[in-house]
């Protein structure tokens, strides 16, 4: 497998320096850490938002740093949660005294490491709160559901809430409302290749796809023979809609997210069917986003996220964001 890298051991370090070199006026790196923060952090009088997780999901999470979204992002090794000391550095660098909201995806490693960071913060009297994103309906038990592309909506909406001057409790509450109303399901067409081992993250035959895949290649619901974009859109939507509890007057936001190796051309072919099915079913779409937002290295495939909106969420979704990966 050919990769555009130097030393696999240096991949995270070099990526972070590259991100800063690309946006020197907007982000800075905390020295000797894997933490990127807003150039102007801590932002006076504002609740800070921190997210993070393993690397390999770019533009998540550093691409969402900006006015109106995240104050900081913590990067772990590829697909590996960052350690508590790194998260703690992000907390210290972004807290303006108003407290810090930790946006955590529901993986045992992420939950444990961020938890330990929150304990470290508590020992230094820094106020933190956390929300755990669990939007992936491929996992039956709602408590065990993984956090996937729906996390971007949490960054966007909670980030706008914080930017508007809300308290830590209010930002947390709004973030939780987004989580409660967001559902995602994904599909993989081909696996990603781990940079350190050079091996595929999981096995998938040439003529097979996997429904309900996670963003680290964790198993989904089932392997199927390859299907067309329209068939996949239909399948995902049929599983997502019953989870949404939509009333006739409800409007939703749609995110079609590429997993890394699927061209935008194909994502739009997929989106065409998603939109026509939603129209057929009388579901009103308020906002649609198509692109690569929460990837899995060079996995091919996509995920579909639906978010049920109310007036508050619509206003916050539309609010300005300067984050390079989600400009509004």
């Amino acid at each position: 497998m050919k990769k555009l890298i130097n030393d696999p051991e240096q991949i995270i370090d070099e990526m972070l320096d590259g991100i800063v070199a690309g946006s020197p006026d907007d982000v800075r790196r905390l020295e000797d850490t894997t933490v990127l923060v807003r150039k102007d952090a801590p932002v006076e009088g504002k609740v800070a938002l921190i997210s993070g997780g393993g690397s390999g999901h770019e533009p998540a999470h550093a691409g969402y740093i900006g006015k109106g979204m995240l104050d900081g992002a913590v990067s772990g090794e590829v697909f590996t949660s960052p350690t508590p000391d790194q998260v703690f550095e992000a907390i210290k660098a972004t807290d303006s005294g108003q407290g810090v909201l930790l946006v955590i995806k529901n993986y045992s490693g992420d939950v444990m490491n961020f938890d330990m960071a929150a304990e470290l913060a508590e020992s230094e009297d820094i106020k933190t709160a956390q929300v755990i994103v669990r939007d992936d309906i491929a996992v039956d038990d709602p408590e065990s559901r993984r956090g996937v592309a729906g996390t971007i909506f949490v960054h966007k909406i909670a980030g706008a809430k914080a930017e508007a001057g809300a308290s830590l409790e209010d930002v947390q509450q709004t973030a939780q409302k987004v989580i409660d109303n967001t559902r995602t399901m994904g599909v993989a067409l081909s696996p990603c290749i781990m940079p350190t081992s050079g091996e595929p993250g999981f096995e998938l035959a040439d003529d097979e796809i996997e429904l309900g895949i996670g963003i680290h290649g964790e198993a989904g619901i089932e392997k199927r023979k390859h299907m067309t974009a329209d068939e996949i859109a239909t399948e995902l939507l049929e599983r997502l809609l019953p989870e949404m509890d939509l009333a006739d007057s409800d409007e939703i936001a749609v995110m079609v997210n590429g997993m890394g190796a699927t061209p935008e051309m194909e994502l739009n072919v997929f989106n065409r069917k998603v939109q026509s099915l939603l129209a057929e079913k009388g579901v009103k779409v308020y906002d649609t986003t198509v692109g690569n937002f929460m990837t899995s290295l060079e996995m091919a495939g996509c995920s579909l996220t639906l978010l049920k909106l109310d007036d508050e969420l619509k206003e916050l979704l539309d609010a300005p964001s300067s984050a390079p990966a989600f400009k509004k």
Partner: protein
Amino acid sequence: MLIGVEETIQWLKNYNDKLSEQKDYLSQLDRAIGDGDHGINMARGFQQVADSLDDDFDDVSTVLKKTATTVMSKVGGASGPLYGTAFLKMSMACKGKEVDAGVFAEMVEAALGGIKQRGKSEEGEKTMVDVWSPVLDMLREGEFDAERLKKTAEDAMQNTEDMTATKGRASYFKERSQGNLDPGAVSSYYLFAELADVIGKGA
């Protein structure tokens, strides 16, 4: 005395060698039911542990505390907090004490409690708990025996093969997780096996 500062350092260095040697095997086990990084993360973290143990240490507790902080900051994933917590609890349980068989049982008990609390897990969920828990039961039975420690840990590790995972990333594989050893149970078995070897050779 069961182990002193020197034996503890030897144990951890041998464990690092073992992890480095079995890195690919552990990652292969993890690829089957997780995300394939267990071997790489553990080997990377414990290399740093081994490198940090050339200083002078006053007692076993300080060695284990140093190990805990290094593991927590260098391993990452779920293994970092879990092994980091285990070493921290072991360190606290032997603070100001000589490590004899009784104290060692208390250390394992504290570590197991820490692992369960941090990972919100119990016995039978196909995790490292399923090695630490039988080892604790064996240690409580009295007379310390290095060979029995190793055998108990090995059998416990083998037993995870037929279990169904309900915790961690392996749980997404549900019944498909059966028939695979739990990678965390295997790395825990190595830890006890290396300790048994260090103690066995010293006796």
